[in-house]
């Protein structure tokens, strides 16, 4: 029985702009929202959209991602017929090559795709936060008898030159595609989510492979298809979508969740985001503890004050400590009297007693975290230390 469609999630990137957060793990494995990892969003979207087979293409430091995904049980992808496949680069008779670009990554997995034999292939990136029903996009693709459908969303005109912009006609067919145009003809930006008819995709990947190009969808495959007048359509997406590729955009997206009525609703029972959760008892707020406008994960012990912050699992806030506008990853300990504001603190770090993180004005040149303090994993900030806004502090340079 031929498979109708399968998903290929590009999860190989480092996400270098996330600095210490991706020192040991790939970007899609970075935590989000007090419980999730970024990869949970594309994976859950696939599961909720009815896909039963998903390939996850990994490359940069994939160990955490591989062991997190496991056999895909959390996303109902532990299946006998189908399931989740982690696809790192591999060696063949000629040697082996790293994935050189988004299109090359798919090209190198043509043998995998041939075995699965799908009619359509959904390609998406593993590092965006959004909820989307890809089956609606597939419907549109089939209805239009398209060779390629590209998901797009409206961006403010002022920002259009930062994106890959699609200009369409009244039927939704794409007439022009410009990567970061100085004078954009439309404000429909590509989301990096594509559905291809596999036969056509295969053709174009094979044609591009031997050439000296960047082997990138946006830069090579899509323009090639457009030039050949292939049937290409835009599919409009509406809803919250965020690329959390920088420290401050990651921080912002987390803060977005704390609104009374957040733009991105994690509590939607009709579109659950699945994840692998640690086995912990529910969190505890003590007699001296306080929490407002925050999200708190399991196993936390709160004896201090938490305001407008997100705490992952097993975070301890001691008496007298204050946490504001921050994101604390699992196992963080904030000792007595410490103060932390507008910070992202990675796993298992400890902020010593009366340390002040992020409140004081910058003394030297500004960092480039957009004002957010970034503390790397397993970093022990000594008691009484002062860390200015926008600093990046890891265990090696405390």
């Amino acid at each position, binding site marked *: 029985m031929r498979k109708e469609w399968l998903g290929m999630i590009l999860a190989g990137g480092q996400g270098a702009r996330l600095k210490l957060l991706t020192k040991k793990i790939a970007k899609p494995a970075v935590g989000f929202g007090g419980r999730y990892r970024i990869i949970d969003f594309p994976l859950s979207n696939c599961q909720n959209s009815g896909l039963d087979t998903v390939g996850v293409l990994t490359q940069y430091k994939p160990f955490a991602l591989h062991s997190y995904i496991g056999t895909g049980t959390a996303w109902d992808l532990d299946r006998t017929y189908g399931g989740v496949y982690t696809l790192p680069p591999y060696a063949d008779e000629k040697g082996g090559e790293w994935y050189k670009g988004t299109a090359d990554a798919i090209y190198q997995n043509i043998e995998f795709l041939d075995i699965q034999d799908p009619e359509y292939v959904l390609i998406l990136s593993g590092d965006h936060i959004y909820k989307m029903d890809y089956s609606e996009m597939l419907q549109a693709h089939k209805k239009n008898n398209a060779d390629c459908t590209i998901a797009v969303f409206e961006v403010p005109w002022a920002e259009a030159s930062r994106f890959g912009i699609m200009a369409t006609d009244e039927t939704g067919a794409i007439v022009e595609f410009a990567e970061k145009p100085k004078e954009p003809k439309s404000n429909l930006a590509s989301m990096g989510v594509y559905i291809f008819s596999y036969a056509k995709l295969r053709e174009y990947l094979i044609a591009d492979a031997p050439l000296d190009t960047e082997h990138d969808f946006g830069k090579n495959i899509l323009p090639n298809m457009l030039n050949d007048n292939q049937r290409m359509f835009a599919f409009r997406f509406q809803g919250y979508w965020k690329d959390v590729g920088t420290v401050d955009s990651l921080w912002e997206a987390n803060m977005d969740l704390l609104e009374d009525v957040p733009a991105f609703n994690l*509590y939607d029972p009709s579109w659950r985001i699945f994840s692998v959760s640690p086995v912990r008892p529910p969190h505890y*707020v003590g007699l001296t503890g306080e929490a407002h406008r925050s999200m708190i994960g*399991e196993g936390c012990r709160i004896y201090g004050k938490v305001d407008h912050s997100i705490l992952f699992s097993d975070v301890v806030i001691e008496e007298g400590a204050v946490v504001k506008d921050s994101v604390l990853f699992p196992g963080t300990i904030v000792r007595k009297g410490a103060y932390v504001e507008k910070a992202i603190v990675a796993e298992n770090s400890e902020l010593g007693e009366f340390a002040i993180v992020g409140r004081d004005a910058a003394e030297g040149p500004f960092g480039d975290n957009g004002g957010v303090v970034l503390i790397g994993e397993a970093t022990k900030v000594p008691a009484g230390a002062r860390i200015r806004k926008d600093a990046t502090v890891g265990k090696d340079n405390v």
Partner: protein
Amino acid sequence: MKNVMAILNLNENEENLYELTKHRPVAAIPFGGRYRLVDFALSNLVNSGIINVGILMPEKFGPLIDHIRSGKEWDLDRQQDGLFILPAADGNAKRRGQLSRDLENFHANINYLRNCRHEYVIISPAGTVCNINYKKAFMFHLEKDAEITVIYKNVGSDYPLEGALTMAVDERGRVTDMAYNARETHNDCLAMETYIMKRTVLIEIIDNCIARGQNNLAMDGILRNLDTYRVYGYEHEGYIGRVDSVYSYYKHNMDILNPEVRNDLYFANGLIYTKTRSEAPAKYSSSAKVINSVIANGCLIEGTVENSVLFRGVHVARGAVVRNSILMQKAQVEENAYVDRVIFDKNVRITSGRSMKGETTMPIVIEKNYII
């Protein structure tokens, strides 16, 4: 512990649990904001290295099976060994106030016992929460060259003994007495209805008892055989919470608010595993006021919560006040409602402005799905 198997003997006394067990067996009662009673029993076994667990099904086994399913969360979803569902004997019903006929359930599954290859068996109930290391108890059993080891907790002389199985142990550790629901004699030791013995001894006991019209494991199987077998008592020194009445259920959940109890119950010898759900972290609004409480994932807190245990997905609206209460999954306390010393089962909703107050010794239990 490769040659040790386990049997969960789930024939608890439900008499004094009323609404809490109307639709579920004792083993499936939600506890501690996240778990069900059976999670402790199962986790203790797997943490001790036991990978073969047979579960004697109680009446109303539906919610239990729905919770345990293949046993994957306890790593019991296996090709060899793993989880085994053992159906109850016909006429499983407990008689009011009297002992259970649990040996009949064992007897109905005697072929299962005969076919297992393990040398030893640990029998555990689910009605008592504790975090215990069976490896130590098993070592004790071997060291003493015991034929039966009974695990107990020294509870002191003012522990309520109604409906309890108590016992006495001499200076060598030998069990000298066991009594059920005895009001006059005061044995300070609470038997935890947990036994270690050779599988062949268990089979012998089952057969001998059933053949003579006897059907209670503790009284007929163990007490009557104190002279036939070398029966030793092993003391569990950690916390126990025996859930056999609404009052004790309430008290032990409130005990969870104490960090020492939490550290013991949830971490002492291993983690407590349970069925996982995909629920987002709890969310606190700007008007949230939470003190001395346990809050599970998926809760939305906009009001005041004090000295309470909230299970997943509970909503406490603006102006609402929850004190000294236990609110199970998806309970809702609407705006300006007030509850104190209540136990809300799943999905119970108290509407705007209403209030309900129980007493510590008599918390008000509201059956699931009720709207007040």
